């Protein structure tokens, strides 16, 4: 009897998925066509020639240095988006990717700054990754624990924890971890060269983070599709009541989904810190957590599509930099383009 209950809940979401798949691609096409048109209209209102602007944007993507930046950012975004996608499969909303990334970077920095001049680089990196993932998982686990014990909604608690994480980082770099030899804005001491993520080409910017991200992407895809755990997550996310009646222990499952999500976000923090930033500084959080949240929704929490969505949003975000130089529009203007793409995608009629 329990088996039937599980089987029924499993079959129904699958049929829904198949239907979404067909209209989903159309949405992508419409979104990708409509969004630039709307954003172009805004740009024209600002006195910027939209056609010239898009020509510049595309040209900048063809520039190898810029294309490398897209890959670097996509790596972080993929991890940030997976951090949302895994809990979402179980019906949980992790809006706290930003905080989990920050706290992951802080943990990585804490370990890295202690060990980078004493231990071999590879070992330091491994320890940093462990610390970052543990910290991210703990930060997300806090929200999951509150959800499961005292029923504090995880969307709100993860959101609040974002701000606390950022304050912790700022508090550390304005005092105990402050680099005495730094100038101007306070920051932590830079990480030793040996403990940084290896680069693919000398002089390039693409680091091993993209490998970590792709491994995580494959791992999550496999785990959700082929493991008992992934199956159970889907059941809980599809119909928690049926899952409970079928004898699944919902609490530990939810906790595990959130912990995995947090660990992935923590890993994103490591990639950002040890791959690009090398030191903690105010403003190093560039909204990856929030954009990752949107990327996951854009992909309807399907791991492989998450990869595509993250790449797309990374490219749009990178376009912001060149926009600033070429058209004089502030980089954040690109948020408009990103938002319109997402509105078209989210606005499917259900």
């Amino acid at each position: 009897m329990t088996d039937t209950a599980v089987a029924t809940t499993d079959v129904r979401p699958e049929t829904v998925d198949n239907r979404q798949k067909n209209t989903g691609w159309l949405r992508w096409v419409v979104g990708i066509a409509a969004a630039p048109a709307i954003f172009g209209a805004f740009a024209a209102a600002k006195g910027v020639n939209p056609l010239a602007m898009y020509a510049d944007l595309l040209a900048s993507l063809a520039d190898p240095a810029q294309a490398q930046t897209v890959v670097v950012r996509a790596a972080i975004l993929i991890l940030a988006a997976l951090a949302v996608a895994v809990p979402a499969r179980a019906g949980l909303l992790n809006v706290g990717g930003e905080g989990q990334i920050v706290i992951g970077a802080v943990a990585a920095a804490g370990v890295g700054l202690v060990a980078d001049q004493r231990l071999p680089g590879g070992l330091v990196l491994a320890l940093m990754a462990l610390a970052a993932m543990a910290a991210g998982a703990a930060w997300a686990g806090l929200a999951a624990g509150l959800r499961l014990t005292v029923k504090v909604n995880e969307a709100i608690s993860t959101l609040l924890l974002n701000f606390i994480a950022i304050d912790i980082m700022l508090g550390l770099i304005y005092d105990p971890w402050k680099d005495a030899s730094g100038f101007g804005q306070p920051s932590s001491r830079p990480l030793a060269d040996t403990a940084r993520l290896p680069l693919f080409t000398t002089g390039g910017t693409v680091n091993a983070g993209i490998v970590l991200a792709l491994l995580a992407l494959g791992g999550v895809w496999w785990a959700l599709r082929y493991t008992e755990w992934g199956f159970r997550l889907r059941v809980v996310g599809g119909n928690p009541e049926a899952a409970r009646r079928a004898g699944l222990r919902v609490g530990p499952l939810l906790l595990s989904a959130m912990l995995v999500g947090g660990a992935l976000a923590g890993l994103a923090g490591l990639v950002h810190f040890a791959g690009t930033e090398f030191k903690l500084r105010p403003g190093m959080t560039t909204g990856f957590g929030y954009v990752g949240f949107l990327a996951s929704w854009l992909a309807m929490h399907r791991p492989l599509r998450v990869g595509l969505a993250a790449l797309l949003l990374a490219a749009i975000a990178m376009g912001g930099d060149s926009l600033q130089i070429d058209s004089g529009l502030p980089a954040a203007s690109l948020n408009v383009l990103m938002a319109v793409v997402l509105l078209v995608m989210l606005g499917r009629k259900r």
Partner: protein
Amino acid sequence: MIFVDVLAGGVRGGTAILYAALGETLAERAGVINLGTEGSMLTGALAAYAVTAETGNPWAGVLAGALAGGLLAAVHAFMVLSRGANQLATGLVVLFLGAGLTAMFGAAYVGQAISPFQPYPIPVLADIPWLGPVLFDHDPLVYVSYLLAPALWWLLFRSRWGIVVRAAGERPEVLSTYGHSPVLVRYLAVVGGGLLAGIGGAHLSTAYANAWFENMTAGRGFIAVALVIFAAWHPLRAVGGAYLFGAALALSPALQARGYGFNQFVLDALPYLVTIAALIVLGRRRVNSAPEGLSRVFDLTPTR
């Protein structure tokens, strides 16, 4: 007196949050959560600043700010109510839209001077020791917010109109059997909430900071959303919460001005910690006092 300074600063700095929180209370009472409140505050702040700069009249600015905030909230309302999009995801997208639009159109106003709202000490009342400087020596928008919170309370809990709004949040099916459209009520509540958030943003740019800069709301809209839960969807309780946040914001500059070397960021994190602590302590009771339509959002509903 540091105490008076902090409290007065709490009222001054909390006012923008209060407007947004009251607006969000209205929207959530009708059953829609709007994480885009932050975006409405941003667009409100810019529109108010720009119009104040062009016309020289901050009241015209506030009007523009309210309209801008309401317009952005209307996008959220359309997505959620007419297109069936997920509320939490759409809220964040709307925030991005607001952040992007204000960055795009606000660059021209960075560093521009305006004639902002001036503090207007209320005669007699402002002279009361302690109470006077804390409550009665502010700009007019602060005084308006004093009236707004009780007005919203009265509207929600004592008027016919309030019953309709709350029914939209609790039992939309019942509402429609009485001939009202829950969707229309929710539209109005969300847009109304956006109007108020826009005024909150306007207070920031034309009375508090007297400046416009990118992303100047710095998370106040999110604080407002959390505050609504903290206040158990009650307008009067939101007042205390908003001033608590405001006071926490005012505490570190007040301490620093007196030479106390406090770690500012511990203090900055305080409001969020207090909110989480309150949510823990009040836990289940708060969730139970959520509008029914919302607790469904908060519950383990399938995400697709």
